[in-house]
């Protein structure tokens, strides 16, 4: 059997020590009536055969030129990152319960927390949640816990729609109400007019995505200050790579955001059909004990030498059980290690360059595609590294035609925003070359093939005061 080292002699000798006649006997406490018959599974493959199978499966999926973002972004990951992260000592350890035997993982997580705090401009960070979407849900729960009375959260319609779904799934059971803040369909952002409607109402938090799902930049200072003026906490949802260029949530408005969450994938995690990624969360100092998830602290050992350990564990399920800040236990630790390496290798200047290149490439892409008759950018507000383009032909057909050219051409957003019509969210990160961009534009031009002006939309969507 693979991975089992026992020889027949071993088994015989061990049974003798136990005083059992057979391995079967070791299961004698299992009631006969619950035992099962033989499993109907495929027969075992040896390593050679499984390698061949998996190589064929990978080859089947092929290689594509990607222009999709929508929450998961293709970035160049320095080769050193995964070469190091898959070292056995990091890859095959578990949660550092025995701190002294886990200083590697612990120090890396401490450095991770430090870098994430610096990136977002906040005081403290935890050591990952599952992903960005579930991190938003955790932030909502945290804001409600911290607020004590309000169980309502104001969520812009421009927050990633799947993240909204995930949040609803996760917080739904606790009678928390998520109220949708409509957005301006022309600008593509959340606006003061929409906020006015909620003036004076009690909310535990306002969520502010930056950039938002459409790639558009929100007026974060205005939104933050409005929320704080209403006694509402601010949950920032940010793309970490964008923070190489954009103002960190800690600096939003007069007082800065209160909780910051996001999808960590852009920091060193490959796209991988969706995972593993990691959610990050940072917050103000005073909210630290409300945080979900593992937190690493620096302390001293018996000899007065610095070292690292899991801390503030009284928040966690293994201590506080039913009263824990979250049920999370296993998190996405290895991805935090990858992110730490990514951040350390790029450094602040490297990140700024990546962010600028992403923006510049998307800008170049938009310039070229909007020169095509019938293709327009849908929104007017500034963007970071993705944008919605409207087409006068069916989006699905266009995407299919691009695919025939080896191009994954963006994400059809009509499923979540039917009001946008035929519209795709496109993204060109630093990984796209000028030739890639030109190739995209040429094919799109050929496919679209005729001219059209999409009608400008002048309504808030969804209509004000809508809820899920």
């Amino acid at each position, binding site marked *: 059997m693979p991975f089992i080292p*026992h020889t027949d002699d071993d088994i015989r000798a061990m049974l003798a020590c*136990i005083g059992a006649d057979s391995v079967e006997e070791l299961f004698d406490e299992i009631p006969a009536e619950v035992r099962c018959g033989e499993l109907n599974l495929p027969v075992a493959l040896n390593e050679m055969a499984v390698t061949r199978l998996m190589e064929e499966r990978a080859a089947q999926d092929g290689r594509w030129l990607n222009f999709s973002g929508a929450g998961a972004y293709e970035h160049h990951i320095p080769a050193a990152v995964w070469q190091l992260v898959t070292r056995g000592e990091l890859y095959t350890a578990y949660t550092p319960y025995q701190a002294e035997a886990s200083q590697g993982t612990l*120090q890396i*997580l401490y450095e991770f927390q430090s870098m994430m705090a610096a990136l977002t401009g906040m005081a403290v960070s935890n050591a990952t949640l599952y992903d960005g979407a579930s991190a938003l849900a955790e932030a909502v729960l945290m804001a409600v816990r911290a607020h004590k009375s309000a169980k309502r959260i104001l969520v812009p319609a421009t927050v990633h729609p799947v993240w909204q779904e995930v949040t609803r799934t996760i917080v739904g059971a606790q009678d928390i109400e998520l109220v949708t803040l409509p957005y301006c369909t022309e600008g593509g952002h959340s606006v003061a007019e929409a906020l006015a409607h909620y003036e004076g109402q009690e909310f535990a938090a306002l969520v502010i995505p930056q950039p938002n799902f459409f790639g558009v930049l929100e007026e974060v200072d205005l939104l933050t200050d409005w929320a704080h003026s209403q006694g509402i906490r601010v949950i920032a949802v940010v793309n970490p790579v964008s923070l190489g260029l954009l*103002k960190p949530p800690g600096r939003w408005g007069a007082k800065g955001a209160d909780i910051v969450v996001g999808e960590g994938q852009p920091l060193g995690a490959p796209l991988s059909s969706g995972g593993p990624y990691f959610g990050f969360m940072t917050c103000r100092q005073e909210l630290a004990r409300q945080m979900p998830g593992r937190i690493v602290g*620096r302390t001293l050992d018996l000899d007065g030498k610095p070292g690292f350990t899991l801390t503030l564990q009284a928040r966690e399920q293994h201590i506080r059980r039913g009263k824990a800040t979250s049920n999370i236990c296993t998190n996405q630790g290895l991805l935090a290690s990858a992110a730490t390496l990514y951040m350390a290798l790029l450094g602040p200047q490297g990140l700024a360059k990546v962010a600028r290149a992403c923006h510049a490439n998307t800008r170049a892409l938009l310039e070229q595609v909007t020169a095509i008759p019938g293709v327009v950018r849908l929104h007017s507000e500034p963007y970071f590294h993705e944008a919605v383009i409207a087409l006068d032909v069916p989006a699905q057909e266009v995407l299919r035609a691009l695919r025939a050219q080896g191009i994954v051409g963006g994400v059809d957003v009509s499923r979540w925003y039917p009001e946008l019509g035929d519209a795709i969210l496109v993204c060109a990160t630093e990984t796209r070359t000028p030739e890639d961009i030109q190739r995209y534009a040429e094919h799109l031009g050929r496919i679209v093939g005729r001219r059209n002006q999409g009608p400008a939309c002048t309504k808030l969507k969804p209509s004000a005061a809508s809820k899920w």
Partner: protein
Amino acid sequence: MLIFDLSQPGRGNPALAPAAPPPADDIPAAYLRETPPGWPEVSEMDAVRHYTRLSQKNFSIDTHFYPLGSCTMKYNPRVANVLAMQREFLARHPLAPEETGQGVLACLYELQEMLKEITGMSGVALSPMAGAQGEFAGVAMIRAYHRARGDEGRNEIIVPDAAHGTNPATAAMCGYRVREIPTDGNGDIDLDALRAAVGPQTAGLMLTNPSTLGVFEKTIRAIQQIAHDAGALTYYDGANLNAILGRVRPGDMGFDVIHVNLHKTFATPHGGGGPGAGPVGVSERLLPYLPLPLIACENANYRLLDERDRPHSIGRLSANLGNVGVLLRAYVYMRMVGKEGMKRVADIATLNANYLMAELKAAGFAAAYPARRASHEFIISIKELKERTGVSAMDVAKRLLDYGFHAPTTYFPMLVPECLLIEPTETETRQTLDSFVAAMQAIRAEAESDPALVKGAPYTLPVRRLDDVKAAREPDLAWRGA
């Protein structure tokens, strides 16, 4: 030495970033960052050196015996890493259409089906990203089920006192009150207490089997019956599935929900705390509520099912498919273990645990449930030693590190005083177990002759024993500059 200590302003790795992108002069200044984040500025080599050396400070399966109970620290096949990290798999965008992912989806679909077969459930969803999220999905489905039937009064979940912390925490997250029920002296659930606890307010019962006490719940049929008779659904915490592979299927026993931890039973790496994966399986009546996405095979074509296909789903738990890379590693492992191997895994995991328990008993250690068979793990209690010498379970754990062994799980389950929960797994040799026993004996001898020695451990690690109290009282959670 922190990575920050190696930093020098202006240093960096220009080759790792785009050369000289134009300024983002079309974005208004108000949106822009004024000062760069306080990240370290180090060379690639210094980073590689720093993190390589840090990694060496870890104990891990690849370096040490790691008998951490409840965690199933078995060998993580290297081939699974290699095959899951093929370029095509890594580069695929989660929202790329299904036609670009028939290879990966085929693996996931087959994984889904294999898990159905192994657990005996009617449907499986792969998206939960860890055991606790699988639990969440499971309890949320229980809730959805009762709601759909208009059975709104059920607001309690029953959890044995020995349960893992995630069980009560999950129940609470799903809006339930948690009712604990005690365990009897044999390690079984107290059936009378259970009978007394159930009622029309009971939404569900969460059971871990083999329990966290390392024993098979002998009255599992009765427990199941009592819960079902009360109209409650039954949840099977499958974190300990390694003990029963190919012998018992929770679905056959009538359970309504189960989560399994791929990062335990199916050998995916633990990554220093994750990522894992906690697929959830359900009985027929919960099928409509499974979280999304699910993977369907239609005319030899793989497709993701969404809200339009499954309107009653509890919804989504992640933005995408879950931890796909972990799922692929489990898939590779399961294909290699195959039909023949599954039961063998449970057999040898159980053999190793019973052997180690027998040897430790012979060496004078007190098993918590000496009359019971160990499942894949078991508990010894250091209580008597502590009373005599002052050496606690924690001290023994720390001293084990000096002997080159990762410690067992300590102080869990909380039920047994000064406990060590020991899970050797099937991938360890008898020789390794014997050397562990020898270390335990040596430590006991030290405790008798020189308790201070043991209480001062560890001595041979990168740090001596760390001050947890200081860490919590004066939290230093981020580097704030030199």
